[in-house]
């Protein structure tokens, strides 16, 4: 105790000193002295030592109250250029899907890619993205990606693979390549194409096959029929006054669809009457394009040819058909009065004669060269993929294939039911699969090589118009994945060559000027200037091809339906089956998640006594599968649609064994389906998860719409429907306006309902996906959802889309009721959510009239726990805990970043400097965000539109997000007939 007392004052009381001498005390302090002091301290007796030890131990224990992550701090040995911690960098690259590229700018935080944006310089993007490219990052970090080279499921090293391939190659070389087959997906990469062609030159006996289920065989065949050679047809939607879509979903998929959307919606501004276009859609399955159409005619895919023929006859591109329908007559009249300014588009799924008919009509109307440009095809080869696959399977079956190298794709799953790919594959001596996942195909292969994701690899790709982009990696391959370039290099005995060298070497003599600077410019811009294909003037064959199939094929058995196979709107051909974001993304029209279903018209379902979720047996051409029923308003009668891509058996933790495999019914001769489907009820049911259970507006003025005539008569039609209280009609003083007042305006007339914004929001804001069970319990987390309403008859309803982010009400009902002040109003008008303060009463969610608040019922963010998934999270946005409410913030992290930048430069934030994630993704430019305090801002100009209205404004919430009402442009001739019908 005595010693304690002596020690204590020394430690507790600060010592004051006036000079160094005084500090040192009498005499100089030497090392020896301090050593002596230490010795004194060490001279504590045993009891005291233990006492101190005990106290230190207990105090150390206190620090364990918060769990600190283990973080190794390793300084840079060499500081990388341009990396400032906390500041993201953007790199241009491109994503290819079925051979066509979309240019991207990918955000990189400290070397890890976190978000994809569109590249404004890229012709297929113009700054916008679709849902697939937004979700590409999820695929990169997918924990189920294959991570090592395997031989018969055993891990092997790259050299082992090389020696295996060398043996096979030697053998092939002795036979001049006979027996060596390479199967790829559609190849749009010029470098890869050149590599393949070089290999074929080297080994003339080797074969290159292409196959992917959503191929463009019919497009090339149709173009060949019309133009004499397969050509790319580029749509110039911006030049078209009248558009007829023949079962074409050109606003949602296909080459250049983002650009088409931009051009389409730019011509639907009601104040610009002269430029306002008109869209007719003829389709069997309700699509995004059909939902945008001014007139939509449900027609079985089979009957589209007859319709096209009658239109062709009426516009003078063939013999006049007997008794064309009123619709065809009206369309033809409209097309004829817009010669050179109209456009007829045939869907990729339509058979070659329809493609040719569309070209013939366009030619007859003088549209070719105006609204329709022909160029060289973008894919390196345009041979019929189904023939190519058939040939491969035939060779395999005959035992002619010694080595098969599958570069990407999943043919075992995607091959048509009557092409026994998996069976024939077993007869191949050496089977090599390059793929991002251990999938159905790798299960049948000897070797599996993990494929590098496009964000990990060097490559190149062409946009729909031929513009080439260099695909540059954002990150080194996470699992030492290989690119197809590297595999092909290995086949050419150059295994040491990297993709980077290969791609550079290809472009070395093709870039103009100094190569290094041109290369750097190409990487920077994301496009290689001047690589777009030049238009090809071709002799156009103006008359319709003779009718063939329709007359020849006998009518099928009575009571049979037509079946239609289409790629899934969110997981495409199944390649995104393990992508949680895309699985949970509601399908644009049906709002289904996590499943596909056989879609039937309401009348057909009624006739067959089926309701939603009934499991039915689909029998078609001697094969059968089971699938649940989804009644889809607007679907054509006596037909069914089943999206392919589901039913994967080896996709990963998320995508395996969900949905029904449409590939088990698809046949090679009619890949888009045909008549002859029999549906029988099994009596069982299967629950489907949808994010929207109620489809009609119940007479409420939610989406307000009018025709162009009505708009001209009464521009303020959107305000006549509901009386909105004056903004000063309140007892409280209004909120003081600060320097900025953030607001958003959403143009419902532009929105196509494509859902790209939903995934963009999810990627930007670390929104977890919750799984099918939670979706069906109504717990989907999307901060931004796209509501879909039908109006009119369920047989052919008008479809309305309404994106719904937080309304950021100035008079917010949610703020009032939070007991702990976890949701508060910011000075700039944002309705802020303080996650740390939230205790989770959910009162705010209840009291939100728009129901845009989302609650973490479980700890959903554990989805980010996998090591690779942690890299996916945007570091600028909090990852939320369970029990916490969350909602749209107008991307407050982007607002703050721009404000900091502006403050540093001592200026206001400029209009357009802040772009929310949804706005950035939107191809239609439907969403505009900005500052209300800036009278010149785009959002102020947009809100000045007479069609601008507040959703549920009559409640006095004064939302900052407002909508521009829909304005349609129906053909007066048809509108009269339709109103009579309804």
């Amino acid at each position: 105790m005595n010693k304690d007392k002596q020690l204590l004052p020394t430690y507790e009381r600060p010592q004051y000193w006036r000079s160094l001498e005084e500090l040192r005390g009498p005499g100089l302090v030497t090392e020896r002295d301090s050593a002596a002091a230490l010795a004194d301290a060490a001279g504590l007796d045993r009891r005291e030592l233990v006492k101190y030890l005990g106290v230190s131990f207990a105090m150390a224990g206190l620090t364990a109250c918060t769990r600190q992550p283990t973080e190794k701090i390793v300084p840079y040995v060499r500081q990388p250029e341009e990396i400032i911690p906390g500041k993201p960098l953007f790199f241009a690259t491109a994503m290819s899907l079925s051979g066509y590229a979309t240019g991207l700018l990918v955000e990189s935080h400290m070397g890890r890619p976190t978000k994809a944006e569109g590249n404004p310089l890229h012709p297929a993007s113009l700054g916008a993205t679709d849902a697939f490219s937004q979700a590409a990052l999820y695929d990169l970090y997918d924990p189920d990606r294959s991570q090592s080279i395997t031989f018969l499921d055993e891990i092997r090293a790259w050299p082992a693979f090389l020696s295996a391939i060398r043996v096979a190659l030697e053998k092939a070389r002795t036979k001049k390549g006979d027996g060596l087959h390479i199967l790829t997906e559609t190849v749009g990469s010029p470098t890869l194409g050149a590599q393949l062609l070089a290999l074929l030159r080297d080994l003339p006996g080797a074969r290159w096959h292409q196959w992917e289920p959503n191929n463009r065989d019919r497009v090339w065949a149709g173009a060949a029929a019309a133009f004499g050679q397969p050509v790319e047809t580029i749509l110039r939607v911006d030049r078209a006054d009248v558009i007829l879509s023949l079962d074409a979903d050109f606003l949602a998929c296909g080459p250049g669809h983002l650009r088409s959307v931009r051009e389409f919606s730019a011509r639907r501004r009601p104040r610009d009457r002269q430029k306002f276009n008109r869209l007719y859609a003829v389709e069997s399955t309700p699509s995004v394009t059909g939902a945008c159409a001014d007139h939509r005619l449900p027609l079985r895919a089979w009957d589209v040819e007859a319709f096209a023929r009658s239109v062709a006859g009426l516009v003078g591109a063939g013999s006049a058909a007997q008794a064309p329908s009123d619709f065809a007559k009206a369309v033809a009249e409209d097309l004829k009065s817009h010669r050179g300014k109209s456009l007829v588009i045939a869907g990729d799924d339509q058979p070659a004669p329809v493609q040719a008919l569309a070209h013939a009509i366009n030619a007859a109307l003088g549209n070719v060269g105006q609204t329709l440009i022909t160029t060289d095809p973008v894919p390196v080869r345009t041979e019929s993929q189904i023939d190519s696959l058939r040939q491969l399977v035939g060779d395999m079956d005959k035992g002619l294939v010694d080595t098969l190298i599958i570069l990407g794709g999943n043919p075992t799953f995607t091959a048509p039911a009557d092409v026994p790919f998996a069976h024939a594959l077993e007869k191949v001596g050496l089977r090599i699969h390059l793929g991002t996942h251990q999938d159905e195909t790798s299960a049948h292969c000897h070797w599996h090589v993990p494929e590098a994701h496009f964000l990990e690899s060097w490559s190149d790709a062409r946009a729909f118009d031929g513009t080439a982009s260099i695909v540059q990696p954002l990150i080194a391959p996470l699992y030492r994945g290989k690119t197809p370039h590297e595999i092909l290099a290995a086949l050419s005995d150059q295994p040491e060559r990297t993709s980077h060298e290969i791609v550079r070497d290809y472009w070395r003599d093709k870039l103009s000027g100094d190569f290094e600077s041109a290369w750097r410019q190409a990487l920077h811009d994301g496009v290689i200037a001047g690589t777009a294909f030049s238009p090809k003037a071709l002799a156009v064959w103006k008359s319709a091809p003779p009718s063939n199939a329709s007359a020849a094929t006998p009518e099928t058995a009575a009571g049979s339906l037509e079946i239609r196979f289409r790629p899934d709107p969110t997981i495409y051909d199944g390649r995104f089956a393990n992508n949680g974001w895309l699985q949970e993304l509601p399908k644009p029209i049906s709002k289904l998640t996590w499943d596909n279903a056989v879609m039937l018209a309401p009348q057909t379902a009624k006739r067959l006594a089926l309701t939603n979720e009934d499991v039915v047996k689909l029998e078609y051409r001697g094969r059968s599968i089971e699938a649940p029923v989804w009644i889809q308003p607007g679907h054509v009668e006596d037909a069914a649609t089943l999206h392919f891509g589901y039913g994967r058996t080896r996709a990963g933790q998320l995508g395996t064994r969900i949905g029904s495999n449409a590939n088990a019914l698809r046949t090679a001769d009619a890949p888009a389906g045909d008549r002859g489907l029999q549906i029988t009820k099994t009596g069982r049911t299967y629950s489907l998860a949808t994010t929207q259970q109620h489809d009609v507006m119940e007479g409420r003025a939610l989406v307000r719409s009018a025709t162009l005539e009505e708009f001209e008569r009464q521009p303020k039609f959107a305000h006549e429907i509901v009386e909105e209280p004056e903004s000063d009609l309140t007892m409280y003083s209004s909120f003081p306006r600060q320097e900025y007042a953030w607001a958003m305006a959403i143009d419902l007339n532009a929105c196509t309902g494509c859902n790209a914004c939903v995934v963009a929001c999810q990627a930007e804001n670390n929104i977890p996906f919750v799984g099918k069970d939670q979706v069906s319990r109504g717990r989907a987390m999307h901060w931004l959802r796209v509501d879909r309403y039908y109006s009119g008859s369920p047989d052919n309803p008008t479809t309305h889309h309404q994106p719904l982010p937080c309304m950021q009400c100035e008079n917010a009902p949610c703020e009032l009721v939070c007991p702990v002040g976890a949701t508060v109003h910011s000075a700039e008008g944002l309705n802020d959510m303080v996650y740390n303060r939230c205790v989770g009463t959910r009162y705010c969610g209840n009291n939100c009239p728009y129901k845009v608040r989302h609650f973490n019922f479980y700890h959903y963010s554990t989805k980010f726990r996998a090591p690779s998934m942690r890299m996916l999270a945007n570091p600028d946005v909090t990852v939320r805990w369970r029990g916490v409410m969350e909602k749209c913030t107008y991307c407050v992290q982007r607002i703050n970043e721009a404000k900091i930048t502006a403050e540093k430069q001592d200026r206001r934030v400029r209009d357009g400097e802040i772009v929310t994630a949804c706005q950035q993704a939107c191809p239609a430019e439907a969403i505009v965000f900005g500052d209300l305090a800036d009278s010149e801002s785009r959002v102020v100009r947009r809100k000045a539109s007479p069609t601008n209205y507040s959703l549920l404004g009559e409640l006095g919430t004064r939302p900052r997000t407002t909508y521009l009402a829909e304005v349609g442009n129906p053909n007066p001739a048809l509108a009269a007939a339709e109103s009579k019908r309804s």
Partner: protein
Amino acid sequence: MSDRRESRYVPVIQPGHTFASVTDKISSIVLSRRTPRFWVVGFGIGFALTLGMLYAIGVLFFRGIGVWGVNQPVGWGFAIVNFVWWIGIGHAGTLISAILLLLRQEWRTSINRFAEAMTLFAVAQAGLYPILHLGRPWLAYWLLPYPNTMALWPQWRSPLVWDVFAVSTYATVSLLFWYVGLIPDLATLRDRARKKTAQIIYGMLAMGWRGSAMHWHRYEMAYLLLAGIATPLVVSVHTVVSFDFTIGIIPGWHSTIFPPYFVAGAIYGGFAMVLTIAIPLRSLYHLEDFVTLRHLRNMAKILLATGLIVGYGYMIEIFMSWYSGSPYEKYMTWNRMTGPYWPAFWGLMLCNIVTPQFLWFRAIRSSPLGLWIIALIVNVGMWLERFVIVVTSLHRDFLPSSWGMYFPTKFDWMTYVGTIGFFVALFFLFIRFLPMISIFEMRTLVPEAELAPADAERKEQ
């Protein structure tokens, strides 16, 4: 007329009782009679259900609120339904004790003790729910205004904060009221107990009560004051609870009629629960002498009166949704009647409006079994009322795109049934260890008490 005849012919205590017999009869249940078998069975069931509830709560805390059926449009489900239901039940006790005391309704004497206990236990159940239903229940104390380093207070505009105060005040005053009323009886038990432990425990609880004139004087004063404080609370608590809904913007919630009709509904439900408990209790413990037909009839009349008020409330609510002209209000009412939850609405109408009409008949008012069945039905009806208000308002509000359905999960049910079990278990403990009828107040009803008019006068001062 009939009232007077009833009260004339049926006394509040059967003739023949003396001070001693009253004390004996009530205290023997606690002190000397064997614990009856039904007690063991009843308590056992209650306790088992309580354990089930604890399990459900354990799962809830471990996994999150997702184990319940709540979802995006319906953010409040069983938890809030049950909260309001239990709070409502907790109204009768204080009403009987405080308001009827102030109104000098001496028939309240034999039922006030267990009605108060019922109140207390019901409020305890109710108090569980607001904490359980939080997304992060461990932060529930953030709703309290306490000085903290974050310098943060609750958000005073939120009715949930008002709720915290209303319910905690009510629970505190109810507890005090009940305990103060118990003190003289605890002293009686202390004096009559044979076992040492019982003597010590009751002795401590009796807080040194000796029954001196000074004690009685202070006691009467305190009790009267507490009654005065408790009386406005009877009205305020459920008014504030109703604010949880009226302050909201949701059609079906945003309504000025809620405060009065919630209070009436609470009294209605509370009396139904008192009857539900009193009728079996009096026959099991042979207390027909103390809880007489007169009590049952009086309570039946209160049930009828409040039932009519509640029915009027429903009618006005329906009328106003039409009269408002608001399409959302109109749809809400129509949806309640014909939407997917129509059985709840029509069940509610049947239970709460049709059933009490039987109470117009004296024969039914005088039949303990009939009354008991009606009381049970009213209990169910009051639960349905809260279900209809909470769930059917939320599940279809303004935007049809966000409409959804609410289905309770097994954990919802386990928690709900568990609180009933917990309530039953607490009640069985109460009747086993404390006098369920006020001994000293019953003694004032015995003819002996009237022999000394001077005493009676003094008491009334």
